């Protein structure tokens, strides 16, 4: 599994460079592509903005005129013996060319849409992951609105027949040495981040359309190296699409989705670089009450203050990553530490990043997921 993953990295390095221009640039040198090319200018693609109103269930489906989009599920689980497990299921859609290009979306084999899926299971001391690719137009991968279904090959995130929306879902994926099948039930409403669903990502004003369903209760089973483990816990689904996620000079992000024991949730991110001399990190987030009310946090005018401070670093896959953080939201009396369960939760996929379960301790306790890209 590790071997094939690395072979994937080699073979599909072309994709990394081609589609995304994966590179690390020292701060201070303006970059036009950022992590995974997400800072490429939007060109002829549709542009996310505060004027766009989210509509459901339509917006659960794909937005092919935007460059990039994802269906991103993370779950913090426990086995019956209390051991913590983490599960990730992600479907990425990438448009290789704007809608004006010659290729169409549904022509078999010559679609401009590219699909990529990542699946991972974190155990208390280990990490398993896999990735798959498919092109659009042949129904090998796709997203259907009603009843909701997102899939690539036999990896799927699917609502039961004759349902609308995302209240009940079943998610499944299998790698060579791991797999899972989980049932999800939403216990709260959908949450729009930022300005009614437009989440600004830099001082320049570009950003993404972004909403979440953070209230899933989960049960099911995780299979690791042939062993089946019954698990239960919480899950968080992120939906996001954009044509230019990062601003010029931004190199990557640190992203938190936390379930606090009080029932409240916190989403927070820091985009590194950009702004004046690429020195200004852009910080933003959402405080979500147990009932689903959202308070925007961050740098923008009128937002409550949010501070994210790295506390300790770990050496992972030849990189230095901050795996312990201090998170402060003075307005809500939040001041706690977020620590990775273990640093080995590295996604050695074609676009490599760190994605793993974390524990919260301090003014509040809880669990969650941390994502770090562009290191």
């Amino acid at each position: 599994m590790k071997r094939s993953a690395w072979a994937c990295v080699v073979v599909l390095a072309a994709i990394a460079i081609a589609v995304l221009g994966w590179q690390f640039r020292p701060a201070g040198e303006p970059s036009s592509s950022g992590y995974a090319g997400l800072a490429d200018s939007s060109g002829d693609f549709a542009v996310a903005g505060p004027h766009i109103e989210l509509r459901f269930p339509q917006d659960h489906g794909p937005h092919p005129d935007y460059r990039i989009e994802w269906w991103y599920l993370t779950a913090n689980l426990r086995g019956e013996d209390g051991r913590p497990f983490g599960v990730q299921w992600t479907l990425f859609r990438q448009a290789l060319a704007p809608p004006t290009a010659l290729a169409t979306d549904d022509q078999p084999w010559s679609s401009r849409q590219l699909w990529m899926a990542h699946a991972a299971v974190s155990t208390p001391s280990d990490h398993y992951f896999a990735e798959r690719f498919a092109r659009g137009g042949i129904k090998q991968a796709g997203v259907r609105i009603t009843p909701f279904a997102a899939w690539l090959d036999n990896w799927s995130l699917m609502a039961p027949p004759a349902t609308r929306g995302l209240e009940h879902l079943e998610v499944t994926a299998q790698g060579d040495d791991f797999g899972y099948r989980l049932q999800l039930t939403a216990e709260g409403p959908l949450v729009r981040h930022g300005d009614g669903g437009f989440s600004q990502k830099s001082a320049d004003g570009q950003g993404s359309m972004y909403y979440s369903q953070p209230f899933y209760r989960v049960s099911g089973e995780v299979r690791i190296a042939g062993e089946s483990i019954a698990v239960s816990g919480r899950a968080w689904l992120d939906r996001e699409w954009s044509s230019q996620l990062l601003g010029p000079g931004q190199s990557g992000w640190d992203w938190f989705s936390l379930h606090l024991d009080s029932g409240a949730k916190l989403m927070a991110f820091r985009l590194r670089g950009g702004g004046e001399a690429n020195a200004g990190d852009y910080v933003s987030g959402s405080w979500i009450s147990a009932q689903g009310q959202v308070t925007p946090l961050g740098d923008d005018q009128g937002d409550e203050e949010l501070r994210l401070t790295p506390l300790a670093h770990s050496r992972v896959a030849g990189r230095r990553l901050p795996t312990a953080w201090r998170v402060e939201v003075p307005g809500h009396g939040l001041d706690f530490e977020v620590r990775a369960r273990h640093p080995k939760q590295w996604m050695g996929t074609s676009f490599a990043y760190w994605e793993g379960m974390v524990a919260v301790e301090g003014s509040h306790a809880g669990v969650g997921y941390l994502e770090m890209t562009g290191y």
Partner: protein
Amino acid sequence: MTPARMAVLRTSLATLLSHYRRHPGQLAMLIVGLWVASALWSGVQAINASARDSYARAEALFSSDLDSITRRDGRPLSLDDYLTLRRAGLRVSPLVEGEWTSAAGDTLTLIGIDPLTLPDDAPLGRTESSAGSLRDWLLPPHRVRVAPDTAAQLNDATRLPPLEIDPALPPGTLVTDIGVAQRLLGFEGQLTRLVIAAERSAELPAGFVRTSAAVIASPGQLTESFHLNLTAMGLLALVVGLFIVHAALGLALEQRLGLLRTLRALGVPARTLIAALALELLVIGLVGAALGIASGVLLAQALLPDVAASLAELYDSNVGTTLALPWHYWLGGLVITLGGLFSAGASMLWRAARLNVLALGQAQAWRGRLRRQLGIQGWLGGVLLLVAALLWWRLSGRAGQQELALSFAMVAALLLGTALWLPPLLAGALRLAARRLRNRPLAQWAVADLQLQLPRLQLPMMALLLALATNLGVGSMVGGFRLTFLDWLDQRLLADLYVRPPAEQFDAVRDWLIERPEVATLLPARSSDATLIGSDSRNAGGTDTATPVKLFGIAPEPILRRHWPLLDTHAGREAAWRALAGGEAFINEQLARRHSLAPGDTLRLRTAQGTRRLSIAAIYPDYGNPSGEITLPVTRLASEFSAPPGSLGVVLAKDRASRDALMARLREGLAARFGLAGPTLIDQRSLKRSATEVFERTFAITQALNALTLGVAGLALLTTLLAQAETRRAQLAPLWALGVTRARLVGVQLAQLLAAATGTALLAVPLGLALSYALVAVINVAAFGWRLPLHVFPGQIAVTLMLALMVAALAALLPAWRLWRVPPRQLLQEFAAS
């Protein structure tokens, strides 16, 4: 080394080399010998290296641990089939493969891939990691990857996507995105096969079959024999060339013995002298190797298109027509040439090292030495011939692919052993002759003089023997093969016209043809594929294999039953045909030999319709076909193996009008009624013509190399004669002084050489026949899987004898002419000097 010793070395080297200034002919002979030896060897090696490079590329591309998945019912795979398997969690990747014809008329293999699902490190999916490559690949105008040698011949900018050069691809292959390939091939919605990483196990749904990558025959294995053949020819040329070198070096040493003694007497240490001689060898070797390798590459360039065509026809494998030479090729050429030179020069160095400073020229000592040397040669030759006989005994009857190297070893031992026997035999013949010529002084002198020349002449004569024998052996093998092959073609191609209608018209065309008065008999044929999974043989016991075989369906009409060639049957020809009708099968010779099958044995086959057991009724020859084939009645192939419609052979009525008129009428009718023309109608005559062309081309290389070897042998003789011309003059001068005219002396010289050449040629005849027999009975069986009857062509033998005499006469002509022109004054001087 001290400066003083350096100076001594330099002076000795200059002194030694000054010999060549006085005898430029010897230097030329040395260089020419090295040059031709190394040129032929490097030429053959260049061809082999280029072909191997092509196979390696093809093998890496096609059988690189990718298993194939196809539908059990043989229909093309659809997109839905692909999705079904992907949804079941199988990590298969779709592939489209077909023949695509360029604007220039070249047929290329076009492969469409999906880089997103191709198993990890498959070479097919390797893309240049330049920015934008995946986007360029997936989006219009897309890209097509092609090897540099193929790109050079492609100029189809209008129909193909922009080219991307990929040196790892085999020649004649285009790789592009699957969508583009479907469009270019007209395969919209179809997939040729699905591939899956070989190490990945998978539970396939019922309707699909998986073929292991290991079963797909690699071109490298099949063609190995062909290349071994070429290598053997190259080696022969190298040996013949080294004979020249050895002769030249021996002569150069002989004439410098006095010089060497003087140098030693002047205080040059023996070690310095040897170093100087070795240095001289190295310099000459480097010059010869450089010349040889350069001309070898030129030679290979000239021959490669023919080799590529042969390989394509024989084994269906693509070989680039431009040379691709790895670094080790150049190094290898140099090492072989220098190694050959030093092995030829070793005796010279040895003799120089043991030089007796005080010994004076011992004119008569040669006699004793020669006798000793001939004795050793006789022994050595005897041992080699014994080895050859033992190998022959071991190989006869059971020659497989793996025995090929042994077969060549046997031939090498046979050739070398006989060559070593040549000088003792010639010496013996001369002794006999000398006894008979007691009363004719001049003739007696000529015989004695020829004995004196023997040490010099023996090497070029051995070279001539080898060249003549191979010429004769290969010539009669090819000649015999041609006869057998043409005969076989006549037996197999019974129909006057072959019609290959589209599948949907097949029945209508057949019914129409049956009704036509021009048609005497209709011979429909179909073919299909199967896998031979085992056999129950009475001789070899049971075997389990998984070999792809071709199923061929024939119509056992009376005319076919009369002519179809059969090699071996279970119970006679008639019984075999009855058995075929009764459910048994015929198999081709290749299949029979590879699996040690005989009539009466049983085959187990896996086909799309399940497994079958077939009993073997007869074995038939199938020249030119690299793979195993099983023949059944066409009706059975259609009903039981669902073979698609194939061709219809039309035997024209004999008694009505002329063949051409009947043919024209039939062609008109087919064109008018069914719109059939062009490549769907094949005239038997053009089929035979192209088959014969293939045949000729296959052996063009062999014959070219043969002719070159004979040329080299002639050259060896010429250079030897030229080199010793001066010494000879000193020996002839006394005769002239005794009153023998120059014209008679020239005549004696010519007669001597012709006698030696005749002796050599007489020995070459049985050797050539033995070689020919080894080729048809052992080497061909191992290399191609078929055995040919031995044909002896007296005309060819006569031509070979004439050729030997002509070569000898031509070689002797120049020295003889020189002798003719020598002024009497010079002869007088030389007489006085001697």
